């Protein structure tokens, strides 16, 4: 894959940890890659795994889900449910033939601005290697 491919990555970040972590990375002037477009959700348990499929269909090259560390969930158990769902959806997408590097999940707490930067760098380089998502992207119809 040529290096000029800039992937589009959708990040679902939980309001209480990862979003604050991304905020911390920004306020502490850490440079992190701009490929991840962040969507704030109240909890990683809010992320219906079909959001991943929907994002990939609508033009995302990768999807990142990030939430509080297990045990730290603001709603006590949301990220435990998210973890089960994510692992199964990850395996299902892999079975259909979607590159497993496109869909990733991480635990980032509000104080881990540096970790958020690392996570973003990893998924961007992974998705760059995987190339553009062209398997079941919805074609743009010109009526």
């Amino acid at each position, binding site marked *: 894959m040529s290096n000029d491919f800039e992937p589009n990555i959708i990040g679902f970040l939980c309001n209480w940890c990862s979003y604050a972590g991304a905020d911390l990375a920004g306020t502490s002037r850490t440079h992190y890659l701009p490929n991840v477009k962040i969507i704030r959700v109240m909890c990683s348990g809010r992320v219906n*795994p*079909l959001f991943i*499929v*929907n994002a990939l*269909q609508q033009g995302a090259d990768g999807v990142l889900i990030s939430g509080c560390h*297990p*045990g730290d969930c603001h709603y006590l*158990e949301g990220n*435990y*449910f998210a*973890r*089960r*769902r*994510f*692992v*199964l*959806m*990850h*395996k*299902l*997408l*892999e*079975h*259909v*033939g*979607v*590159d*497993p590097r496109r869909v*990733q*999940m*991480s*635990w980032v707490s509000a104080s881990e601005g540096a970790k958020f930067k690392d*996570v973003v760098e*990893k998924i961007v380089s992974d998705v760059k290697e995987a190339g553009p998502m062209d*398997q*079941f*992207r*919805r*074609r743009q119809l010109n009526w």
Partner: protein
Amino acid sequence: MVDENVLRDKAKEILSSGEVRRLIGWKRGTYGYEAAPCVITDASQADDLIFDATCVQNPASFITLEEKLPVPRGQQPDTRKIAVMVKGCDSRAVVQHLVEKAYIRDDVVILGIPCRGVIDRRKAEKIFGEAPQPVLAVAEKDGVVIRVNGEEKKVSREEILADKCLRCRYPNPVISDYPLGDEVEKWADDDFSDVSEFEKESPEEKWAFWEEEFSKCIRCYACRNVCPMCYCVECIVTKLKPQWTRRSTDLSENTVYHIQRAWHLAGRCIECMECQRVCPMDIPIMTLNRKLTKDVKELFDYEPGVDAEAQPLLASYNPQDPEEYIM
């Protein structure tokens, strides 16, 4: 296997006792290799009931389909139960319904029938061709005695039984109020070798396979309609607000539909293989479901449709769940 007279007598007894309002079972079809499912409400109809190796359809699908109309003022709702005849695999659907509280245990009367396997229409048509008359078939320990167009033949089990039966782990119903017939011994086990074989392929090879299969889909939704686990009042694929998948039959929408369908059966699919049986385009739908079944078993040590007291898989969690995919 069960003597049909025992079955009919039991059905008559239950229906005439006034305990149930209807009974779901099988009767002889008008043609072909598959018996027809039937719903009877009166003891006089019980003589239609049959059970043999042509009873492929899962009657548990019909329990949740009953339309519950508002009762006119002054009348009482019919609170009698529904009786259902189940094979081993069908009984798992009933258990999973109970786990999900689709209905309560007191609402159903279960007539459990041990089963030695049912025949696969596609395999049978390859051997015998089309059957304009209804086919009779009895599965035995060492083969299937089948009567097609007036000729009786015996064929080996591997040749004619459905794939799900060749790896059946639950030939006897896991739940029943009235067990009918003698229990049969288990003859096979499931090692998911077909799934692990497919897993070894590269993402490109996998996608090449699915691209071809998914492009065949005509989105008739037969797989969804026949599934005993798909009983949502409003299905996500026909919902318009929000519209999760568009209705056009192109590769993108078909892929998303099949991922959604498989995903909604994660930790719920009881492998009756009805979806694959009814597919008019012969898409190997169960390959997706079996992948999830295998993962659910390996990762969470969970098997749907076995224990009626269990928690639904995705509505419960274990703090020690595997985390290998998470950064």
